[in-house]
């Protein structure tokens, strides 16, 4: 049944239906509503016997999730931005240990300058941590993806990050259908860990591996991660059938009038809706939404983009000094094809991505390799102007050094 719900609330209720065993949580905007709601449910006994841990940091949150997961409990946590970076070491570790944790990342910019608003710099920074990364295009998908995430994580023994644009989705009220308990139970069997701490069968987990086998360990992890796309498609189909809503069937990549289009805009996350509206009124332009960003579904993407004459990648993050992160992935997926791939950096630190700007952008006759959408040239010019009149720091240092040397000489 569809109800008017905040995105965070729908995610929390869906996670609750997944019967988590342990939820370690630490507050950070815009993720807080999710864990607050879960904490209250645990308090009320609605999730018994689930344990909710108020830990002292995100690093502890991910670490406790690792401990719980490897002790045989379904573990869930959520974070954003600085919190994700703060737990980075444990994020990589969870993947290395094969702990099938599910974590929501309410995407938010990374400081400095500190900024609580949405972009995807946080999850992008951890794209190579060995986790499966799913990006929700809308709030219904944000809820549904959590069920798929637990099932996928546990089938493959790999952790899954569900990335949801902060505020844009987490704080938006929309009609959302939280999947019913029976449906979730049918799709998601009880957690059977691949490795577990158990006195009846003692195992050593997390041993040290040297040069003689480390490459093989990494090779196998890569191989396992690469098996995710078909598994995801299968589980998503099963889930869509269980909820009786074919339109809710998630895919690794979603093709909206993209196959055969002249220009295809590639994007991740909540900008999908705006983009689809925009291309509806432009001939020959389609949208390709990447839901599974890691492992990177290169084959699926190439299959859609193979006939396009121009590809525009809309990036909600910036790799300083190297521009577009998703662009590089898309380019490598298209190796050998003679097609321009242009980067549009948009929506950084919460700047809205408006339909008018997108329409204007797509109508431009020539697009540079890298374009910053809605860049405020006046601010840039003013700042650059001030920098040229500022005294270079090296000279000031030199003067000071001469002065103090003089003082010393005189003393």
């Amino acid at each position, binding site marked *: 049944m569809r109800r008017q719900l905040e995105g965070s609330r729908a995610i929390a209720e869906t996670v609750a239906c997944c019967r988590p065993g342990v939820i*370690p949580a630490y507050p950070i905007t815009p993720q807080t509503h999710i864990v607050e709601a879960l904490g209250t449910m645990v308090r009320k006994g609605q999730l018994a016997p689930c344990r909710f841990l108020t830990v*002292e940091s995100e690093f*502890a949150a991910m670490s406790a999730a690792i401990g*719980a997961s490897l002790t045989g409990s379904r573990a869930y946590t959520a974070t954003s931005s600085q919190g994700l970076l703060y737990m980075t070491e444990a994020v990589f570790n969870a993947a290395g240990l094969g702990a099938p944790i599910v974590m929501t990342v309410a995407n938010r910019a990374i400081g400095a300058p500190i900024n609580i608003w949405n972009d995807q710099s946080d999850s992008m920074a951890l794209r190579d941590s060995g986790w499966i990364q799913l990006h929700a295009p809308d709030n219904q998908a944000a809820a549904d993806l959590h069920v798929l995430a637990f099932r996928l994580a546990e089938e493959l023994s790999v952790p899954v990050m569900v990335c949801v644009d902060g505020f844009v989705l987490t704080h938006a009220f929309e009609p959302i259908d939280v999947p019913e308990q029976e449906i979730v139970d049918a799709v998601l069997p009880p957690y059977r860990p691949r490795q577990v701490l158990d006195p009846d069968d*003692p195992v050593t987990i997390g041993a040290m591996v040297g040069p003689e086998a480390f490459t093989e360990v990494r090779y196998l992890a890569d191989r396992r991660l690469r098996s995710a796309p078909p598994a995801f498609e299968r589980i998503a189909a099963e889930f869509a059938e269980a909820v009786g809503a074919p339109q809710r069937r998630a895919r690794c990549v979603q093709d909206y009038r993209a196959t055969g289009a002249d220009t295809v805009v590639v994007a991740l996350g909540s900008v999908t809706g705006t983009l689809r509206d925009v291309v509806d009124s432009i001939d020959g332009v389609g949208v390709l939404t990447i839901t599974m960003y890691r492992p990177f579904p290169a084959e699926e993407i190439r299959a859609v983009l193979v006939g396009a004459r121009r590809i525009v990648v809309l990036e909600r993050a910036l790799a300083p000094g190297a521009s577009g992160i998703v662009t590089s992935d898309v380019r490598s997926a298209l190796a050998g094809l003679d097609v321009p791939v242009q980067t549009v950096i948009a929506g950084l630190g919460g700047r809205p991505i408006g339909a008018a700007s997108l329409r204007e952008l797509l109508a431009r006759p020539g697009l540079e390799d890298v374009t910053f959408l809605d860049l405020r040239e006046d601010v840039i010019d003013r700042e650059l102007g001030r920098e040229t009149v500022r005294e270079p720091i090296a000279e000031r240092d030199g003067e000071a050094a001469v002065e103090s040397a003089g003082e010393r000489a005189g003393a």
Partner: protein
Amino acid sequence: MPAQSVKFYQVGSRAVGNRLLDAELRTEQSSAERRNSITSGHRACQGCGEALGARYVLDTAERVTGGRLVTVNATGCLEVFSTPYPESAWQVPWLHSLFANTASVASGVAAALEAQGRTDVRVLAQGGDGGTVDIGFACLSGMFERGDDVLFVCYDNEAYMNTGVQRSGATPAYARTATTEAVGPIPGSRPGQGKDLPRIAMAHEIPYVATATVAELRDLEAKVERAMSMRGPRYLHVLVPCPLGWGSAPAETVHLARLAQRSGLFPVFEAEHGEVTSVLPIRDRIPVEEYLRPQRRYAHLFADPPRTDLIERIQQIADRNVARYHLDPHEIPHEEGA
């Protein structure tokens, strides 16, 4: 299999040997039935106090829990020497995640066991002094404060040994390490109290805090047993000499641990809910010099000319411990209001 009369007994000049005791009073280590939680063949240095301490602690914990124990281990010597792939010395369920997060991982394990109703299985977390007092401190304090049901054991060899003997927050004053070389006007580690983690743990008013050394085997085993008889966060801090880092003879490990205790530099006590409940009195105190001299990490104090001023400062630290914990059995009890 009938128990052999004596396999292993407490060593050291002043110890009462096991062979003089009734079988049921003997230490776990002297029992043919001991669990060998960390079995032989691991890669620790000869005379490694940490290997010794871990075996003592875990064998006892295994016995008193009836083998219903899972362990979480920090990065450090203990982890590295015990699990070179594809081998493992561990006979207990054992998880290593990272250097800093051991207490949090253990909190997660305890939460999972509770959620699953498997409260018969107990959790023991362990790490070195660096993993405990420095990088793992926030996680440990959180575990204490939340009241999680974990025994955390710190094997204190007073430096970052696994990376080649660098100073940690537990390195004692004037000890030479690779990052506090014995050069300059104040050689070795900076003077001060370091991070006194047992007292910081006590400030959390957790059910149980204890210190011990690998020299007093019976005392150490009794403390593990006491700790495992309780629930909630518990902390055990064990002094474990490291021949490599301390520059001491491998055969001197147990002896040095005893000298540390007898000098007053390492006070051995128990505390419950923030209050000291018992101490190991020092009946035959030695000057700190006797403990410092056999260790190469203090060699600069005994050079020519000797740094008697610094030795005196160390003596003051020992004196302060003796007074604070009332370690002198001949001390005249302080009368209230007198």
